[in-house]
């Protein structure tokens, strides 16, 4: 590389020496562009060695005047990562032909790659004067503004790029800016348009699917992720996200088959092993689940979701001491989640440390907004300790949350939880208990119908009320909010055994 570079770059100043002998013999000048086509053909075939040899020859012959040869040489430097050299060559191209917007565009591009966004913007503006209607200039200006955090300017530029000519890349950048600004809905609109424009771009499909997943619109999310997988069955993000959705519906075997593809191509992905682990958990293969989760934890020791799941599995395995460790580690990384404290409290209850368990419950109740399980479990503990009044308060709190959830009705109530709640209501002698159960049943039947709709869509039956195995799957960094609420079912199962005796 180095020896190639030296002769070509020194060409420009040293054009004089071979001039004299040539003058006498050959006054006819070679056509400067005579081998441009060949240079270009070599370049697009990625035959860089041949291309460089030809460029060298061509530059020698024309004494460094062949603009296109320098241009391609610069492009190749940039591909090799020598951005500074490429910048210098593009600049000399711009000197040779100041009327060519392409030269300026490439100068700007090299500046951009060097991180000099402001300088790049200046050069792009210069290029825009030469060529008004170029989407590439608008697009790149938009990207530069994005990195400078001038989001409004960036959006303006990207929109005008889209008006000139539509490109997937522009859509992706525009969507990214909306996400950076936290405007999920607008980002979805942009990606929708993008998918309409190019329906086979897996990256667009996956991103749109994940955004829907984040908003909790599962059907559309699955549709788009499924489409992405049709076009590219090895798409990493789409497999994880689609797999985690299958898991929420209890299709563990299908999810596992999908994960196999990924385990082959990306064997060291923590979320993958987390999801595989929770699949095994759902299939009640607890030892395998623990193995996989521990591998995930080994690969990503600071991921609280994996620790959470490890805690959950160990609770199920009645290894309360281990569960305690995983859960307290998770709490250290994520101190703002009610469910974590609740699980910790359950572990502590089983370790006969009811004092700390109450404190953990108190923390959980304070942090949690919507999960009735937290209150129910707290009520059970309080009842067992003989504090009926406090238990009643928690029970009523739980009822409030249940009514709220019925309003949105996105969640399905675990039958064991309902049963437990009824028992609890009876024990506390709350008259409403009977009234309460009916709407729940109503709600469940309603849920059944929706799930029937879905199943026709997904072509696989939904395990409607599986108590276990709603795993927290960190689907490629998304799905944080969507997967959580289902988890506690797993715990509740193990919890019930102890409750039943006491009641």
């Amino acid at each position, binding site marked *: 590389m180095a020896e190639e570079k030296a002769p070509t770059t020194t060409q420009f100043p040293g054009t004089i020496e071979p001039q004299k002998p040539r003058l006498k013999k050959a*006054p006819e000048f070679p056509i400067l562009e005579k081998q*441009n*086509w*060949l240079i270009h053909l070599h370049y697009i075939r990625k035959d860089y060695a041949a291309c460089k040899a*030809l460029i060298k020859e061509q530059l020698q012959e024309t004494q460094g005047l062949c603009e296109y040869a320098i241009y391609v040489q610069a492009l190749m430097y940039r591909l090799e990562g020598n951005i500074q050299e490429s910048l210098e060559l593009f600049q000399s191209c711009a000197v040779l032909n100041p009327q060519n917007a392409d030269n300026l565009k490439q100068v700007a591009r090299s500046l951009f790659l060097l991180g000099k966004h402001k300088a790049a913007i200046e050069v792009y503006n210069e290029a825009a004067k030469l060529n008004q209607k170029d989407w*590439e200039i608008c697009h790149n200006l938009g990207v530069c503004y994005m990195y400078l955090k001038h989001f409004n300017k960036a959006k303006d530029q990207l929109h005008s790029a889209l008006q000139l000519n539509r490109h997937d890349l522009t859509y992706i950048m525009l969507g990214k800016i909306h996400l950076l600004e936290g405007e999920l809905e607008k980002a979805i609109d942009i990606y929708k348009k993008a998918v309409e424009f190019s329906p086979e771009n897996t990256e667009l499909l996956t991103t749109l699917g994940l955004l829907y997943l984040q908003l909790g619109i599962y059907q559309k999310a699955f549709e788009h992720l499924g489409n992405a997988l049709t076009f590219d069955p090895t798409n990493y993000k789409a497999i994880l996200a689609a797999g985690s959705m299958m898991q929420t519906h209890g299709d563990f075997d299908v999810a596992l088959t999908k994960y*196999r593809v990924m385990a082959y191509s990306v064997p060291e992905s923590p979320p993958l092993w987390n999801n*595989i682990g929770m699949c095994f958990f759902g299939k009640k293969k607890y030892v395998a689940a623990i193995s996989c989760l521990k591998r995930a934890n080994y690969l990503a020791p600071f991921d609280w979701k994996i620790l959470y799941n490890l805690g959950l599995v160990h609770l199920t395995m009645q290894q309360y001491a281990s569960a305690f460790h995983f859960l307290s580690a998770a709490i250290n990384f994520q101190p703002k989640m009610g469910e974590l404290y609740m699980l910790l409290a359950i572990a502590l209850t089983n370790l006969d440390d009811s004092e700390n368990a109450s404190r953990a419950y108190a923390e959980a109740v304070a942090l949690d907004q919507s999960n009735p399980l937290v209150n129910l479990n707290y009520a059970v503990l309080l009842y067992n300790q003989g504090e009926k009044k406090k238990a009643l308060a928690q029970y009523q709190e739980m009822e409030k949350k249940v009514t709220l959830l019925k309003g949105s009705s996105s969640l399905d109530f675990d039958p064991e939880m309902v049963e437990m709640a009824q028992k609890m209501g009876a024990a506390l002698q709350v008259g409403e208990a009977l009234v309460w159960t009916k709407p729940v049943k109503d709600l469940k039947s309603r849920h059944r119908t929706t799930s029937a709709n879905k199943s026709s869509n997904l072509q696989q039956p939904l395990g409607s009320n599986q108590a276990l195995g709603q795993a927290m799957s960190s689907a490629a960094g998304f799905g944080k909010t969507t997967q959580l609420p289902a988890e506690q079912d797993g715990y509740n199962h193990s919890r019930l055994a102890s409750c039943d005796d006491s009641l």
Partner: protein
Amino acid sequence: MANIHTFSACLALADLHGDGEYKLVVGDLGPNGRQPRLKVLKGPSVLTESPLPALPSAAAAFLMEPHEPRTPALALASGPCVYVYKNLRPYFKFSLPPLPPNPLEQDLWNQAKEDRIDPLTLKEMLEGIREKAEVPLSSQSLRFLHLELGEMEAFVAQHKTQPIRRQTVITTMTILKKNLADEDAVSCLVLGTENRELLVLDPEAFTVLTKMNLPSVPVFLEASGQFDVEFWLTAACRDGNIYILRRDCKRPKYCIELSAQPVGLVRIHKTLVVGSTQDMLHSFTHKGKKLWTVPMPAPILTMSLLEQRSRGLQAVMAGLANGEMRIYRDKALLNIIRTPDAVTSLCFGRYGREDNTLIMTTRGGGLVIKILKRTAVFGEGAGEAGPPPAQALRLNVPRKTRLYVDQTLREREAGTAMHRAFQMDLYLLRLRAARAYVQALESSLNPVSATLREPLKLHAVVQGLGPTFKLTLHLQNTSAVRPAMGLLVSCLYNESLYALPRAFFKVPMLVPGLSYPLETFVECLSDKGISDVIKVLVLREGQSAPLLSAHINMPVSEGLVAA
């Protein structure tokens, strides 16, 4: 090895002698692109071979006139010329019309001819033209602009009499039917040039019938329709765009932006298939609407059309860098042909007396000729359909040992006890750590002071053999900006063992970051070969509690022991 180095554009199949035996015409660039030759092959062997004046950029066989015998002529584009052969004999040479020079430039050189302008002014004026003018300068002027002062005179003297010339070169060439759609109808040549023009030539007179402008330099060219009726020209250009032109419009009608460089262009009826440098095959309608995209496993090197007339099949062939040659009908992969070397050029058609022959040349100069069975039918699904093979592999789930299971059982039995013991030990550990920490803080035993106001660091060095030692204290202010002032150093020691001339002294102002060496001498009074600890305390003026302290273990005084 056939020693053929060429591109798909330089391959043509034609019945050159009108005997029904089709020959392969190759515009060969030669090894390293140094010996351009025109080769005509019959079967696997070279029939004739003749040297060419410059590298060929395209070859085509076309019918020049409607009269019998209907033997096609051969056109070979090279540099600024098209060489036309008939019966394999040179017949005509067409040169691109020279481009009009810049009038201002012409004017300047005319003045130079009459010696009315000196070289320096000429240079300045030319420079000015180059900056602004629409029409670029000739190579003569460009060369002149790069000369040093001393050589200008001679250059002007030698070249002033010559007319200014601007010449361009042909980058690509294809053929377009003149007025009939028949298989063997008279065809025009369509040329793409370096100065961004498309020219259509009359097949008999070789005059320019029409001229069209492009925004960039064409690389690949496709033509359909008839010149006299209606036609479409599709040009893939160096700016990564594909322009579609129609009859009666001088500018492109549609534009497809690829955002990568095209590496091949094939037209099937009204759809275009384009290979890009991003290892993708894209398909577009002839109006520029995107239809589909197929990813390739390796970079595409060349593309061509496969047409099996007997079955009405039209498919796209793509030669890949990994030595595969893939055949696609629309999105569906029909076949993969593996070759020993990467295929660099492709051609399909009638060769010899065989209707469906595939001709490939490889990177190393090899020639592969394959004949399609007359009964062969291309079926879809030859490629990878269904789930990827990795789906069938077993998951590598880590195994658990017997010991693990035993431990699990034990934890279930005695979980509470284990937890209690652990908590107990943890509390004890914390307690001890806290105690030690408090103790250190209370007595400022540590050599690093962590207080916010005076972050200091101290380390001490003892030099010498005794009985006199030199004690050097290195004191450093570790705060970011604030200097430390009003500090004192006090040494506590056993007065029966040691004597210090300076046991208590002031510390100069400490600038942040620098290490200050403070020296003091220590005299050992005992001759019994015993040593003791000297405590060094750093204090703030007016405070009795030390900021930090160091315990220095003094060495045994060897001087006295020896004496």
